[in-house]
């Protein structure tokens, strides 16, 4: 029998690979989770104060990571999604989803991490540097809380770490340590560095996809950039779905004057070149993550509106809807219980295509400098900065570009496949 890869095989492969690569990090995260749990029980107030996005993120992802094998074991025979065969588009989409959920596990680096710019600036892919660990300057923690905070900073990496030095080479000369950064040699006292087995404690750090002009790891930024793209995509689609559904229901169900108004409004939005509209609003009102989501959502509801309206118009006069009305169902109930399930199917395909449009628009906006801002890494912004260094560093632009194209390609392909499954009449 020929082996056909399915999605759950990929998940299993991912799970095993991560366990092999990141076993230390995983154990640390579990310990962090346990410690936080203890802190949560003993001192609720302080635990709530310590709660920030990174902590929630890490703990959630380690929880989900532990659940993966259980889900696979229970549902791999039953779930259609897990059984679906693996091809280019499903591979890309599942990988993106994994990057979205497990970003803090896949990469143990902070996307904004910068240190020793001279050493890390514009490194080629697969280049490595040595890390010289300095002995901790801070005094030893006394309370349990301080211990927890120290432990948290050890695992959830901040964007700056004063306790390490990135170097090319380390040599021991009598009682001093000489390290070189590019062609500059510096000296440091023996007592200032961590010592292991009589020699300075040095670890290796590999930049798989190289670094950008600020010495930040491109691989990490790509992983975290997937988060932004997916977040904006999902958020904007939800916004346009809400607008399209409500406007479509009202216009289709009431008809008459309201219908005319909404249809003209749709025409207006279709008449305006959408990118002009988005750029105009973002530039006038300022760009932030929320603004980008809302504006992209506002600019994409027209297709959904048209579908919902025509479907509602077609279903409105059918017997079962009229019967439901005669039986005394309220309009709201008819819409949610009777019409929504029927129009859901044609909506799904449109939503997938809308999703790929939004991802494209988000990266285009980031490229123009009107994206989600500098506080989050974004593929479009990476491409934009890559363009400026195109002669010196080809890797800065090619990896985000490739990932963006692969994402859009697979989202389109997924939509087309879904369309074929839902509407079997459509020819290839």
């Amino acid at each position: 029998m020929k082996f056909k890869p399915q999605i759950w095989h990929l998940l299993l492969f991912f799970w095993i690979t991560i366990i092999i690569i990141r076993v230390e990090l995983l154990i640390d995260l579990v310990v962090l989770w346990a410690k936080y749990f203890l802190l949560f029980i003993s001192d609720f107030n302080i635990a709530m104060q310590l709660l920030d996005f990174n902590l929630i993120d890490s703990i959630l992802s380690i929880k989900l990571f532990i659940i993966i094998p259980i889900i696979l074991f229970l549902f791999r025979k039953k779930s259609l999604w897990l059984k679906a065969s693996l091809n280019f588009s499903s591979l890309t989409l599942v990988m993106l989803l994994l990057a979205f959920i497990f970003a803090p596990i896949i990469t143990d680096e902070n996307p904004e991490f910068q240190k020793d710019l001279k050493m890390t600036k514009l490194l080629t892919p697969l280049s490595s540097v040595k890390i010289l660990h300095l002995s901790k300057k801070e005094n030893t923690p006394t309370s349990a809380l301080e211990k927890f905070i120290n432990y948290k900073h050890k695992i959830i990496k901040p964007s700056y770490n004063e306790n390490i030095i990135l170097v090319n080479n380390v040599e021991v000369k009598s009682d001093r340590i000489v390290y070189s950064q590019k062609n500059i040699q510096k000296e440091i006292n023996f007592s200032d560095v961590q010592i292991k087995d009589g020699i300075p404690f040095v670890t290796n750090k590999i930049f798989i996809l190289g670094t950008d002009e600020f010495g930040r790891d491109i691989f990490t930024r790509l992983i975290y950039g997937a988060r932004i793209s997916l977040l904006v995509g999902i958020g904007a689609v939800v916004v346009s779905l809400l607008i399209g559904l409500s406007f479509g229901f009202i216009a289709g169900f009431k008809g008459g004057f309201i219908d005319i108004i909404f249809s003209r409004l749709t025409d207006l939005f279709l008449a305006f070149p959408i990118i002009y509209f988005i750029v105009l609003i973002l530039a006038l009102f300022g760009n932030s993550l929320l603004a980008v989501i809302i504006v992209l959502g506002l600019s994409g509801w027209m297709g959904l509106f048209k579908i919902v309206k025509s479907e509602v118009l077609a279903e409105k006069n059918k017997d079962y809807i009229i019967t439901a009305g005669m039986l005394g169902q309220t309009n709201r109930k008819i819409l949610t219980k009777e019409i929504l399930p029927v129009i859901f199917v044609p909506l799904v395909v449109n939503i997938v295509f809308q999703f790929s449009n939004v991802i494209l628009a988000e990266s285009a906006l980031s490229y123009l400098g009107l994206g989600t801002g500098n506080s989050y890494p974004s593929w479009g912004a990476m491409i934009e900065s890559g363009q400026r260094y195109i002669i010196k560093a080809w890797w800065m632009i090619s990896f985000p570009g490739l990932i963006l194209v692969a994402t859009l390609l697979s989202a389109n392909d997924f939509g087309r496949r879904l369309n074929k499954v839902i509407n079997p009449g459509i020819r290839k």
Partner: protein
Amino acid sequence: MNKEFLKALLKRIISSLITLFLLISFLFVLIRLSPGDPTHKFLSAKFSPELKIKVTADFKLDQPIYEQYINFVANIFKGDLGISYNYRMPVLSVVWQFLSFTLLFASISFVIQIIISFYLSIKSIRKKGNTFDKVVSKLSLIVYATPAFVLGVFLIYLFSVQLNLFPSSGSKSLDFDSFSIAGKIGDYFWHLTLPIITLSSAGIAIFYKYLRDNLEETYQQPFILNLRASGYDEKVILIKHVLPNAIRPLISVAGIELGILLGGALITEIIFGLPGMGRLMMSSIFERDYPLVIGCALTAGLIIIISNFIADLLKMKLDKRMIKGLMN
């Protein structure tokens, strides 16, 4: 021209005008809602409050909002869009300067899109199922999924950085004025080659897909079998019977495609640093040059409205059934 046609035409014109009117109102609301006091452009906060009142009165900003709105609409219909803060010229003439470039750029790209997609789809439908067809179909999907800014930068890397064949930005050389007329035209197109490839590729992919699907559908209809059975030449069937049927649905796609073209032109102009509408819009937004922003947005909207109108008109000409569709 019968009565029905005229009636449909009138209805179409009125609905276009309503859309235009809504567009203007929408722009007004947007500009009024946006944060920032317009008088700050001319006054520092340190100046006397009397001066501020005077400026506010000069710009009629102290009038009630509905009167401002009426003024705004009236001025636009008079063709007076105000004076650009940055260029110190009437907005219309500034927009016209940049618009002519974008129109030329977009129309060249449009023609190229039509020609290449026709050629490719006809070639691939005639050799349906062979390698050429498969390769072009797959390639069109990839090209369609490639954003303009990725493709444009890739082209710059390949042709400007590595091969040094084409310039990477600008629309004319530094010594442009010293060329003869033929040299000027050649220089222009030399600079526009990469932008046109960038702008056209997505459109080619879209047109190719629609045209190929339409052609395939038409070829499967019974009347083609009848024509073949009657002994008509394949070429005659293609040109006289298949193509006219396949083109019709393409016209509405072309109307939508123009919107994509304008949006793509914005990105392409920014990648290659071309003096077009898109870059004018971006720079005017970033410099808070509100009259120019309104002018750009209005022009872009107007182009789309007019092109949709023309597309509908063509459809009405080609297909009498469309008139009924528009009437309802």
